[in-house]
């Protein structure tokens, strides 16, 4: 490892010899995923008894590849390069762009979250590293967070109970992304469909939020996919 991360030093001057950026590029997904555990894989969901109407369905999109991409939107080559590799433009303020299973969420004016299927993660990371130049940052954060999807007619009511952000259609159209507090924890919420909401939650908060959500959803009828 150390030889990968060690910056190349010029022998005499002590400055970086080559202009080539130094980064560690490695496939962080093991070849054998049979023992892989997502943050919620051991969570014991308590669903509503069968026969009841189901208003809220929770589904964890487990073990995806999560990347934080940072760069300057004023840098045309960065914006163009990212769009070439990802196949979608980097979205603007509070927006998201999706292409198949790849979703790019706006997090901050210079920061985006890219989620891709786990098996494609290394290819996307490698391609971005190959294409992008200059001042940017790409970090694999797959292990730190997970995606929880709430769907169903009453999913919106669970959100209303859990966060103070206005989730009405006029303020939260499909495709919008907001970073906000959800049940007192930090959360990035994206409206993926008319009745579908994706929550990006931290690994260490996953248990707590899952427990909160199942409690909040019981009155509408709760199921897990």
């Amino acid at each position, binding site marked *: 490892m150390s030889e990968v991360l060690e910056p190349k030093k010029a022998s005499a001057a002590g400055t970086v010899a080559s202009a080539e950026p130094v980064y560690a590029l490695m496939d962080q997904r093991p070849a054998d995923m049979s023992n892989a555990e997502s943050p919620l894989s051991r969570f014991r969901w308590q669903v509503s008894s069968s026969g009841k109407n189901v208003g809220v369905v929770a589904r964890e999109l487990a073990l995806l590849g999560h990347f934080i991409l940072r760069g300057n939107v004023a840098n045309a080559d960065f914006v163009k390069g990212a769009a070439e590799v990802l196949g979608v433009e980097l979205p603007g*303020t*509070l927006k998201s762009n999706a292409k198949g299973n790849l979703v790019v969420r706006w*997090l*901050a*004016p210079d*920061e985006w979250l890219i989620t891709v299927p786990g098996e494609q993660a290394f290819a996307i990371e490698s391609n971005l590293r190959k294409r992008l130049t200059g001042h940017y940052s790409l970090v694999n954060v797959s292990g730190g967070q997970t995606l929880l999807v709430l769907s169903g007619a009453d999913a919106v009511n669970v959100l209303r109970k859990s966060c*103070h*952000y206005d989730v009405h259609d006029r303020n939260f159209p499909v495709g919008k992304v*907001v*970073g*906000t*507090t959800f049940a007192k924890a*930090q*959360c990035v919420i994206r409206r993926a469909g008319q009745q579908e909401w994706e929550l990006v939650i931290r690994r260490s908060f996953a248990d707590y939020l899952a427990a909160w959500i199942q409690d909040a959803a019981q009155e509408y009828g709760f199921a897990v996919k």
Partner: protein
Amino acid sequence: MLHIFCPHCGEYREEEEFRCKGQAHIARPLDPEACSDEEWGHFMFFRQNTRGQHRELWVHSTGCRKHFNVIRNTVTYEIEKVYLVGTKPETEGAAS
């Protein structure tokens, strides 16, 4: 609860999403080694306790996690102006 405009997100959000980081525009001494204990102490610990307009640094901690400045009236709690770090709009009677 305050309703605060985040200049990076371009929206009003609840105070719960923000943290106040205290007085804004505190310049770090360019050469800390050359500071006397008194100068360094003033930089580190001494803050204004303004009545009226107060310039503060806030961070949108659960949103975009960016910092910005506000001018808040400490008497009425009203946020009179929100502006980006690196700028300093003039306001009558504003604390420095």
